[in-house]
């Protein structure tokens, strides 16, 4: 029985890892393409949650989860066009400062628009409750999230590997100078990647709005674990981030099973150990322009 309980925690950890992935993958993609560590990424996660809560009052939860990432992705265009674009070739400390500042501005803006008190929304009745498969119990709602994340992951992988868009983005990550020499402007691709990244974060926010406290500082809260996932996986590595997100979820679940009070600390211990052995992260690639 003890083993079954442990296995249940492992499976639940994988589900949670899928959620971490939504936030961490966008963070990693934006870094890969633009060389920018986007400290404002959590703000888009929070905006996704707030827009979802707001839209739910008008069009229901299902439509809101679909629409809110697109609304936030549109904001991502402005973010890339008027802010990030100025810092692609600048000293990294400047982009850190500007995105850190933007995160604070976004948090205050949310506070001014929606107030300091949390807002709330609910899971539709049809997705409430648990499903028992064999000996394992799953939240029906989290299974939905996992299915959407899996589909998105496949879509993004195909986009990056099998399309001309993906080829340009991948080439741009390694040798932006060569891409430019071939007469391809990278900027529209960067805009698209930023839209994709912040849209995924917003989807994470929208999905978690009914099961977590939606408050102005929620973006800052999620950033810590998102960075842990990206650092463990290796900055710039698609599969590294995927493996890392799942690993973080599982390690946390197993630790909570044996030593609940150490649950949150376990992911930092994992990061420490990985960095000790592989400072580049699990599958971190050597990106020439950052060397």
């Amino acid at each position: 029985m003890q083993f079954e309980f442990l296995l249940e925690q492992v499976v639940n950890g994988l589900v949670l890892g899928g959620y971490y992935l939504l936030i961490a993958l966008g963070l990693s993609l934006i870094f890969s393409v633009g060389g920018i560590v986007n400290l404002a990424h959590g703000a888009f996660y929070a905006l996704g949650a707030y827009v979802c809560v707001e839209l739910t009052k008008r069009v229901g939860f299902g439509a809101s989860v679909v629409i809110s990432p697109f609304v936030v992705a549109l904001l991502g265009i402005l973010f890339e066009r008027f802010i990030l674009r100025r810092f692609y070739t600048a000293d990294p400390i400047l982009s850190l400062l500007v995105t850190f500042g933007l995160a604070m501005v976004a948090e205050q803006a949310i506070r001014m628009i929606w107030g300091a008190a949390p807002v709330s929304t609910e899971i539709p009745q049809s997705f409430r409750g648990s499903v028992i498969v064999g000996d394992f119990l799953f939240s029906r709602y989290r299974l939905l999230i996992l299915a959407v994340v899996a589909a998105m992951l496949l879509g993004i992988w195909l986009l990056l590997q099998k399309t001309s868009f993906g080829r340009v983005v991948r080439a741009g990550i390694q040798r932006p100078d060569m891409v430019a020499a071939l007469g391809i402007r990278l900027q529209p691709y960067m805009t698209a990647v930023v839209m994709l990244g912040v849209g995924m974060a917003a989807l994470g926010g929208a999905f978690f709005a009914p099961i977590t406290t939606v408050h102005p500082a929620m973006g800052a809260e999620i950033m810590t674990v998102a960075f842990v996932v990206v650092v463990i996986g290796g900055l710039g590595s698609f599969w590294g981030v995927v493996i890392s997100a799942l690993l973080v979820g599982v390690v946390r679940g197993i630790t909570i099973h044996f030593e609940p009070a150490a649950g949150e600390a376990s992911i930092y211990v994992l990061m420490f150990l990985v960095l000790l052995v592989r400072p580049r992260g699990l599958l971190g690639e050597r990106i020439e322009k950052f060397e």
Partner: protein
Amino acid sequence: MIRYPRRRLLQAGAAFAGATAFGFPAIVRAQAEKMRIGHLTPLTGFLGVIGSYAQLGVKLAAEEINASGGILGKPIDLLSEDSINPATAATKAQRMLEQDGAVVLLGEISSASSLTIMQVAERNKKVFFSTGARSDALRGKNCNKYSFHCDIPNTVMVNAVGTALSQKGMVKGKKFFTLTADYIFGHDLLKAAKTFFGAHEANLIGDELIATDVTDFSPYLLKVRQAKPDVVCCNLAGNQVTNLVKQYAEFGFPYPLVGFNLNTGDAWAAGAGNLSGTWPTVWYHTLANPTSQAFVAAFTKKYGKPPENHAWIDYITLKLLAEAINTTKSTDSGELIAYFEKQAQFDIGKTRKAYFRSWDHQLVQEAYPFTVKPKDQMKDQWDMLVLGDVVPAANDALETIYPTREQNPCEMKA
């Protein structure tokens, strides 16, 4: 290097000298004519949401007191800041007393931060009103003569909910599983809960200590399911309660969820369809009492939403403090302590008046259990709770739900 014309430098120097000679004493005098009061409360972190309500409440009280002539004829100059964490809270409290000239301190929700402010107050021999911290230890083994405690302590919350649960047959012989915040408040609440379970023949079959930065409770909920309890009991605080309530509703477990701690701000944040069970509260904005309703009307008019219980407790604390200073005509700590230790009675917007108990400085007052209103009966998003019978009952003495001298190890040093 930037070069400034000599004439401009001389002008600036003269202006500064003039301000120093003529303006500065005026500024100092102006400051001295105000009654500076320090207020600390968490505005960030897991208690930040309810802390922001506390700040709104104390600001409203200061405005009303100033509009009616201030304290001893002086307007209140309220310094209200984010306490952040226990170490920063202590640093800010020290600065407020030492540099800013605050005559008294009030506020705080975190029991850990409240404890460090209590130590600062004692060192500086200044009075501190801990408005929202609930740990029994603060008014027990850590008590000191300069600190007063306004919110109901953990033992009272456990007694309020426990009594209501007992009446429903949900305690005797039942298996409880508790989820507890891993800091002084949670440890303390668990201790009070264990005492209650022991006295009422309930079995505690599992307890999980949960770090205050946990937002996802799914691994803990799996452990709850594995234990198969009769009742799940929440000993968390702040927005962790909200997260647990939402995720508990998500998993849809058959075991009823109750709690020994909940603030109405957290209940509102959880949303109508998610919260269920029996919980305790110190105050709710629908309480039918003229003083309470006057406060609710003023707060709602000013901020466009009803007050939460921390807004109320910080509001009434500043009001009763002003009353005490005006009565004693002094801000001297010794005189104020002597006044409160005479167990002066205060109207805090409840049926019975409240008083600070002389030997542990606990504000003795009524408390309430509550259940959740069916969604279709709510008038608005704030109208979520149905208050149960007041605890203690009208014919019982107020102190019957508070720890007795034998139970409370508080020893005030002279």
